[in-house]
């Protein structure tokens, strides 16, 4: 997939500004909190690529409130995850378009991860922005075909009666949709 950091930045800025009116400022990748929400989609084609969007809960709540035009504190966790998943879906769709390969886009998956900054594999492409005073990070990486069960479940989180799998290491077959 021929995409560089500048393209990834442009796609993200276009989506956040056009759809949400949010101002994004590119920054050097920085770790600001251990616990992050991660929304991911998988592009299944010649090579399977995962697009991940990471933000802390405060930022994601703020973005979701913009998307829903809702008052502060009025959204449910499901609504916040839904909004986050849609952002990943839009970024993933546009990344797929830039790559120009015949591929399928999965439905988005949303998870909460701990210690996420130590989980990125070498060779992934990532870009970061300051958004409303918090960090919004976009990561592109190849899907891992074989992962340990420990890695798969490391950041799993139960929300209600639904299990959101860790997005940091799954095979295409385990990338199930958020219902």
């Amino acid at each position, binding site marked *: 997939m021929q995409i560089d950091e500048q393209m990834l930045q442009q796609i993200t800025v276009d989506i956040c500004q056009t*759809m949400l009116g949010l101002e994004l400022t590119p920054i050097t990748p920085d770790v600001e909190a251990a616990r992050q929400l991660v929304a991911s989609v998988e592009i299944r084609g010649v090579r399977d690529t995962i697009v991940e969007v990471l933000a802390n809960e405060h930022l994601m709540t703020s973005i979701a409130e913009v998307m829903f035009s809702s008052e502060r504190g009025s959204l449910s966790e499901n*609504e916040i995850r839904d909004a986050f998943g849609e952002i990943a*879906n839009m970024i993933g*769709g*546009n990344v*797929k*378009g830039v790559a120009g390969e*015949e*591929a399928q886009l999965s439905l988005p998956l949303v998870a909460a991860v701990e210690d996420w900054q130590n989980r990125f594999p070498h060779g992934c492409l990532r870009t970061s922005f300051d958004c409303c005073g918090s960090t919004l990070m976009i990561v592109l990486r190849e899907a891992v075909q074989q992962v340990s069960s420990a890695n798969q479940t490391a950041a799993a989180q139960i929300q209600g009666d639904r299990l959101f799998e860790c997005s940091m290491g799954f095979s295409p077959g385990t990338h199930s*949709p958020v219902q």
Partner: protein
Amino acid sequence: MQILIVDDSTAMRKILRRIVETLGFKVVEAGHGIEAMQQLGSFPTTEVALVDWNMPEMNGLDFVKAVRANPLYEQTKLVMVTSETDPTKMARAMMAGADEFLMKPFTAEMLLDKLHLIGLTMPRVC
């Protein structure tokens, strides 16, 4: 005048609803294609459906095919509103009976242009 918004994302449905309600349309929603077919059954005079591509249960392309297979919905315009940017897929949707295609991200003006392109008369211009 009524618009059906078909998208599995509640947030995206809210964004689309906000735009078209400003234009004076009444809105019904569905989270996937099967639910959308049920909504069309309840509101057969729906003039336009804004349809996402990637959805659970029944995707946007299958929904377009199902709508076009039913003469009852012959007059219903179908606009794909999706993150899909693959020209092959766009062509497939148009061949199946979609009337227009709008890629995410979009602005209210871009959506309005598409509604004009399919010949829709706005109930109220804001």
